[in-house]
């Protein structure tokens, strides 16, 4: 049987963990191919609040996770500063909060190696003027913001520069086994519409919340708990740095400023499937009301969107027969969890599963649990085990090798404005909300991006308060021009190329608008209701688009994080 390609290792899953595994392998000189069903970062890695954990959030209850976080927080600042907003964080104690918890918090941080600084009410207000006037005190911690798409792009680019491959829009559909070994991974090329196989020596399952599905294809049981978290996007930042409630983690206790917006988080509810990313309006209301206790202005603020992500929580099997649990990470305590239950009691640490000793499947590992902040460490743990089995002696270098792009230092909030001012590009703005220029879009299209969705993840087109009212169709025009039909400025009537239905720019635009809509449904009232009806009056009223290019099933299945 001939394969599409042969490789040493197939990595399944294009979230931060999978891409970190790919980079780790690349740095050790191992050839690997990553397969992802949609685009990079479309699962949990793109559906989260963007917090670079200091670990303080886990300092009281889960100190192993806390220690992992502070270690990786420090490492990521070194290897990927360009993906990080170095904004710091506060834990605020409000009237009614348990002061004893504050004591445990400080002790826990100390024990976990997380530096804290106690701030008086006045000092906290100097730092964050919009904090509740009656807060009692606050603790400063080294939280930060991190842009996971930027991190993904840098890690993937580094891995590809070292000879590894990334195949997006290649969902895995099966595995070929020969006795105790997997010989090939079967994928579906969603663009070409064909199934293909990739011959391999090893498989790393880094599918996160979907790791159980991949396990099933390989014939090994992996029980994941889908822990849904709802997040709300506010139209402005409100705070300079991250703000957490200094209490036992609960709904609506964190505000993460990110680029031009703030993200409120989060719920933690067990659901039946990681694909359940529905957003009940009551959850949105609770996020806002809870976060408004810390920053009252949020209570009457403008809400852009809400979205949900699925935490990749791992539930170890009860020890039975020779099967052992994980190789790293203590067994989580607390409830088993059933649909609807709170999943906060499940540890946020990670676990490497060697399916040889666990299930008698010789050449597959899974890496489960964990968090974005610890993705590099997770990759190191699983690749260390894999390398040992492969006989690769090259040590892990991901903690010291700096990522491409890192030479610009940490991301500064006003960087887009500074760039526009430097280039005098006011007239070239395509997206006023996010300060994206036509030049940036043209460059991105020239580099091979073909979809508005891709432009959004790379450039933030469509993220701002108007939710794509003006930028989407300007960008669609540039995409249409890039299809090689009529370069602007030719001065000649041209454009006789037949319209390819799949590349019809209006269909792509309609899909994009429907995807943006999905995340707005539960947050539309007040000003946003006006904005939504204005956008409708533009696209349906003026431009007479009726969405006929997007079939219902396609609209329902639209991929992509908020």
């Amino acid at each position, binding site marked *: 049987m001939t394969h599409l390609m042969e490789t040493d290792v197939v990595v399944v899953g294009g979230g931060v963990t999978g891409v970190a595994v790919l980079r780790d392998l690349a740095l050790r000189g191992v050839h690997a191919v990553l397969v992802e069903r949609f685009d990079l970062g479309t699962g949990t890695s793109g559906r989260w609040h963007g917090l670079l954990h200091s670990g303080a959030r886990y300092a009281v209850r889960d100190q192993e996770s806390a220690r992992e976080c502070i270690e990786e927080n420090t490492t990521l600042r070194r290897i990927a500063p360009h993906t990080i907003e170095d904004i710091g964080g506060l834990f605020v104690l409000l009237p009614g909060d348990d002061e004893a918890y504050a004591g445990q918090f400080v002790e826990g941080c100390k024990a976990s190696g997380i530096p804290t600084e106690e701030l008086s009410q006045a000092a906290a207000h100097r730092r964050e003027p919009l904090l509740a006037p009656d807060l009692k005190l606050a603790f400063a911690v080294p939280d930060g913001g991190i842009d996971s798409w930027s991190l993904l792009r840098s890690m993937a680019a580094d891995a590809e520069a070292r000879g590894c491959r990334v195949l997006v829009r290649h969902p895995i559909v099966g595995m070929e086994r020969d006795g105790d070994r997997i010989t090939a991974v079967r994928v579906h090329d969603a663009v070409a519409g064909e199934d293909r196989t990739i011959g391999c020596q090893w498989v790393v399952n880094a599918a996160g919340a979907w790791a159980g599905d991949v396990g099933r294809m390989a014939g090994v049981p992996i029980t994941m708990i889908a822990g849904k978290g709802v997040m709300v996007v506010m139209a402005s930042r409100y705070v300079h740095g991250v703000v957490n409630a200094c209490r036992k983690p609960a709904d609506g206790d964190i505000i993460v400023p990110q680029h031009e917006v703030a993200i409120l988080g989060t719920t933690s509810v067990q659901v039946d499937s990681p694909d359940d990313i529905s957003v009940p309006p009551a959850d949105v209301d609770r996020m806002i009301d809870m976060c408004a206790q810390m920053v009252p202005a949020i209570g009457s603020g403008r809400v852009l969107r809400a979205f949900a992500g699925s935490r990749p929580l791992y539930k170890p099997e009860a020890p039975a027969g020779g099967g052992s649990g994980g190789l790293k990470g203590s067994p989580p305590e607390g409830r088993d969890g059933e649909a609807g239950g709170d999943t906060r009691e499940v540890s946020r640490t990670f676990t490497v599963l060697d399916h040889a000793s666990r299930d008698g499947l010789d050449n597959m590992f899974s890496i489960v649990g964990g968090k974005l902040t610890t993705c590099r460490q997770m990759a190191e743990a699983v690749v260390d085990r894999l390398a040992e089995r492969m006989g690769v002696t090259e040590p892990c270098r991901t903690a010291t090798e700096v990522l491409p792009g890192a030479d610009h230092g940490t991301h500064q909030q006003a960087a887009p404005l500074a760039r526009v001012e430097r280039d005098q590009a006011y007239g070239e703005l395509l997206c006023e909300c996010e300060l994206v220029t036509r030049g940036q879009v043209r460059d991105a299209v020239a580099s091979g991006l073909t979809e508005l969705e891709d432009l959004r993840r790379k450039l933030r087109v469509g993220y701002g308060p108007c939710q794509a009212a003006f930028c989407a169709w300007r960008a669609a025009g540039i995409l249409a021009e890039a299809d090689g039909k*009529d370069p602007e400025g030719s001065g000649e009537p041209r454009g006789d190329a037949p319209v390819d239905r799949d590349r019809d720019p209006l269909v792509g635009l309609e899909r994009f608008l429907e995807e943006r809509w999905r995340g707005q449904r539960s947050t539309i009232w007040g000003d946003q209701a006006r904005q939504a009806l204005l956008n409708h009056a533009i696209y349906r009223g003026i431009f007479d688009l009726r969405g006929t290019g997007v079939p219902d099933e396609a609209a329902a299945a639209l991929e992509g994080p908020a």
Partner: protein
Amino acid sequence: MRADVVVVGAGPAGLASAARLAETGRQVLLLARGNGFTHWGAGAVDVLGRVGGETVDRPLAAIDRLPEGHPYHLVGREAVRDGLDWFSRFAATAGLTHAGDPDRNRAQVTAFGTLRPTCLLPEPAAGPGTGSGGFLGGRVAVVNFAGFRDFSPVLCAASLRKAGIDAGAASAPLPAWDHDRYFTGVELARAIDDAGFRRRLAPGLARAAAGAEVAVVPAVLGLNRGHEPWADLQTLVGTPLVEAATVPPSIPGLRLFAAYRARLEALGVRWQFGFPAVGVERDGDRVTAVRSEGASRVQATRCQELVLATGGVAGNGIEANRDGTLTERVAGLPVQGFDGRLAYLGDRFLAEHPLAAAGVRVDAELRPVDAAGEPLATNVHCVGGLLAGHDPTAEGSREGVALATAARVAALLAATTVR
């Protein structure tokens, strides 16, 4: 302060109501929070473009197919005709002649290359031919002015070709001007007002349109001189020019707004712009004064009649609350709410949205009514987008409802004694 009539809102309904009431000799004060749908729309007069999702050819006839309670049913077909006739006369007098027939819809070309159904079109958008859709016959050059970001000739031409129109895309260079690096449609339109600029622009536009029978361009051909810059440029280029509707602000809408403003000033209408009405004072079943924000305080204007033209949710006449209830913002009139905010909108953006049709229920004299259908105030009349029972965007009825209800209000108040 006092006035015979206070009109609140400066969208298509408020502007037409104020003008028509002033024409009957009433002393009118127009209060407005800001601009309305002249600026945000397609720059056309939509009367009825679609019913039940199906495209309408004969808008006045299709009124029969609208559901009960629609504003057109309340005012009657003759008020629609009266509103359109009045508008056509007013616009032509102001140098903004419109083409079209109230009994027959026609197509308006958009920057997306779609052909939207509408009724009356300003001449620059109407095209050389007559009838519906046939105005883009033969070879069509879709031409942008180089560097103008709100128009993509490639996108437009590709869609027109899908509709069977022989369209190609091109770009015309702009002569050197003050805004060679940064410009909006408004600035470009203002530049095109200048005859010298047009002379320098024409040769490049003519080259881009060479061989075509019609050139489709973005709707930016002049701002303050009516349709004269369009007509002049068309003559210089030697090819019929058709303005395509693009994103707000609508330049044709700005031309119309300026014409309204001039007309209202000529009629002696007082005008407070940027000062929203925030409440009313009542005496029994009458409103006696309108409270509005002033420079330093809330002021009350005593009035005989109040006309609310504040718009629906989109126009800011109604606030959609987090819990699914709706609040009318000036007089606190009742508005039917929803079973939670998820019911406001459809699951698909480009579908229809129940919230767009939310509004104030009125009687045949356009007076707000309670749940039992009894008038809540005898001297308050609602017009335009504020009215319940119509979806201006999905139906394509915004300007038609505005003009028809303005006509009705003018007729009603003309019949009452002038104080």
